[in-house]
């Protein structure tokens, strides 16, 4: 890119609209669908992301319920095994790439400019583009279910050669969909980094930023580092399938194990991409409702960075049984266990923030506290899996399923819901119905534990994952899990109801909607007007 390009009119227009918007009024937004198709406003795009993510959460959830319905009792009752495999695969793909990641990006879009005192994201048009890639990508992905041979059926990890030599013909569409979703994430990450590094309110240093901003900055760097690797892997798959190369085919000199190395080099940082922003949300909510500043702000930042760096050194703990040499097993085992240290620092800091706090238990706080407890359980089962010799036993059993659902459902998803309940007053100007939110919380927490806790036992007893039928001794655990899954799924309708009611009305919220909330977003009115911080706010350093 040449450094001295003549200023291009559209670029100039969009940046001035961002930069010196205070001097002229904003053009009336287009009406109807075009308002949403063409919007460059970070709040509207944030809302689009969140609505998209919620839709995907329900679609992925329905797939999960198909799986759980089939597993309700032993034997094959409802679906063909081939379709069962498509359901497990699609559930994973949709939840990871369609629900959790866009939800965090949506929260980032809404909250990062508000929390750092910026008028909008740095690249508003790119922001619009990165959102609208998502519906395209996931329409394509979902359409593979209707294609001859069905959709992807090789698990969300799409190990070669299952996903190359033995894959359905629709796999090429799956690859394209994943490419598009990947580009969307990458563009979102570029935008977030550019915003955080360049558009903070005057006087706000990096170490003054709220932790949600910090965790997202680190997450965005992870995205920039690993999404291209994912793109590379699926490009190799594409070439193996369609152009006769042999990256992963032993017959032509390739190696299927290479696929797993490449995939998990992306995949392990990816799991932190799905949890670091959750740490940020919880680090905002706990101090608010404990009415104390966060304990150990700097150590939180360093712990997040340490987790991100370590995430590049642990990928092969997903592959302990491929036949790694002993020295590699030991290296990956110890480096994985090392991650427990910065994570422990975080949990310690949250607990210490609560210590002697003046705590109240509104719905955001309930979800945040549940996050701390249940995420820690998921972390401990992760430590068990990190022990290489134990993993030989646990690998590909329901214990693994229990582990990652504990870190993703009461981990990432609960944090997202906590964030939504926390910031809904800022978005809509109304408090969510607290009674409804509390019911939602208690149903969710019962549902989550009923669904996933028995999976630990099923897994330790030897039940393999990704199978539509199972031996009789696992029947009771599966029955409980299935009942819990339907209970949890149904109780999420309360969440939708709560959000809709909150958008339509409710108790009016003041600018500072929560008594103990300190960050910049609580200085703008509730609901936040379409354009905020057109003149940069004066940032007063608090007591981090």
């Amino acid at each position, binding site marked *: 890119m040449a450094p001295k390009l003549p200023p291009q009119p559209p670029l100039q227009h969009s940046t001035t609209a961002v*930069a010196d918007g205070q001097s002229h009024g904003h053009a009336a937004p287009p009406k109807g669908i075009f308002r949403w198709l063409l919007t460059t406003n970070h709040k509207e795009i944030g809302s689009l992301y969140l609505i998209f993510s919620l839709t995907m959460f329900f679609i992925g959830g329905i797939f999960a319920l198909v799986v759980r319905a089939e597993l309700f009792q032993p034997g094959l009752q409802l679906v063909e095994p081939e379709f069962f495999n498509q359901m497990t695969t699609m559930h994973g793909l949709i939840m990871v790439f369609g629900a959790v990641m866009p939800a965090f990006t949506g929260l980032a879009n809404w909250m990062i400019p508000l929390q750092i005192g910026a008028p909008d994201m740095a*690249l508003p048009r790119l922001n619009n583009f990165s959102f609208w890639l998502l519906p395209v990508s996931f329409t394509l992905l979902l359409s593979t279910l209707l294609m001859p041979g069905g959709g992807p059926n090789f698990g969300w990890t799409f190990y070669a050669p299952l996903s190359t030599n033995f894959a359905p013909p629709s796999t090429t569409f799956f690859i394209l969909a994943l490419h598009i979703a990947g580009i969307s994430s990458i563009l979102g990450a570029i935008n977030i980094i550019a915003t955080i590094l360049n*558009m903070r309110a005057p006087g706000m240093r990096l170490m003054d930023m709220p932790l949600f901003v910090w965790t997202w900055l680190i997450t965005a760097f992870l995205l920039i580092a690993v999404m291209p690797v994912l793109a590379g892997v699926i490009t190799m798959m594409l070439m193996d399938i369609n*152009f006769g190369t042999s990256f992963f085919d032993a017959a032509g*000199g390739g190696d299927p194990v*290479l696929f797993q*190395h490449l995939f998990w080099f992306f995949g392990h940082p990816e799991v932190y991409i799905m949890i670091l922003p959750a740490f940020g949300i919880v680090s905002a909510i706990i101090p608010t409702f404990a009415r104390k500043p966060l304990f150990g702000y700097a150590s939180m930042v360093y712990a997040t960075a340490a987790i991100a760096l370590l995430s590049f050194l642990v990928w092969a703990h997903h592959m302990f049984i491929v*036949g*790694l040499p002993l020295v590699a097993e030991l290296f990956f085992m110890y480096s994985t266990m090392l991650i427990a240290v910065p994570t422990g620092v975080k949990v310690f800091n949250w607990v210490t923030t609560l210590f002697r706090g003046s705590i109240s238990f509104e719905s955001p706080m309930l979800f945040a506290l549940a996050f701390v407890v249940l995420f820690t359980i998921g972390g401990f089962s992760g430590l068990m899996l990190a022990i290489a010799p134990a993993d030989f036993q646990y690998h590909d059993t329901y214990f693994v399923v229990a582990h990652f659902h504990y870190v993703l459902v009461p981990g990432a998803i609960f944090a997202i819901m906590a964030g939504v309940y926390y910031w809904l007053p800022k978005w809509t100007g109304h408090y969510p119905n607290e009674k409804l939110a509390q019911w939602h919380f208690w149903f969710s927490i019962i549902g989550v534990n009923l669904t996933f806790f028995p999976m630990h036992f099923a897994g330790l007893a030897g039940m393999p994952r990704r199978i539509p039928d199972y031996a009789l001794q696992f029947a009771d655990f599966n029955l409980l899990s299935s009942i819990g899954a339907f209970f949890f799924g149904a109780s999420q309708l309360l969440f939708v109801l709560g959000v809709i009611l909150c958008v339509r009305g409710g108790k009016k919220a003041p600018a500072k909607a929560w008594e103990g909330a300190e960050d910049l977003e609580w200085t703008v009115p509730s609901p936040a007007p379409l354009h905020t911080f057109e003149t940069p706010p004066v940032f007063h350093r608090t007591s981090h």
Partner: protein
Amino acid sequence: MDSQEQARVGVRRTVIRTIAVLIGMFGFAFALVPLYDVFCSITGINGKVDATAKSVVHEEVDESRYINVQFITRGSPGLPWQMSVEMRQMSVHPGQMAEVDFTFTNNSSSESWGRAVPSVSPSTATTHLRKISCFCFQEQQLQGNERLTIPLVFQLARDLPDDINTITLVYTLYPIEHVIQNAALDNTLKSSANNELINDPINNLSNTPKNNKAAGEAI
């Protein structure tokens, strides 16, 4: 508007840098493919034996140790062949040369090409298994209903780690696609010009590396 100008320059700089990282990481993913091959061929940890013939090392046979060498053969869909081995396992001393016969049978009536790809377990033994002659160095062609017996000649290096008592050698048969077949054929024809003894597997060693490369790279 100084600070806004500054922010704009900053955004542009950030975007250029992140895109540079992106391109770098995309390239890195592809660079990992040859790096992985190099790493594995040095360490042998993916169990892939060097697909070139080794010369016999005349060293003293270590009669104090017996190593149990097991052979496993596997077919694969798309190739109507059967591969069998004369004995499932044998005991050898490190340093001793051993020979075992493998038999390929084409169960269909049409000619086809296949290739047996080896894998050694435990992977730490890989670099200590020296193959003097192996059918796995090149593709095999079988006429309809043909049966072909080819010996594997190997030697275990004397520096085989002490903790290894059993070595398992797995051969998986893979069909060779038409495109590759032609490339391999071309190569065979070229090398047969230099080497009249093409049909004798043991004497065929000098040109096998080239043939072998063709399978991996013709694509």
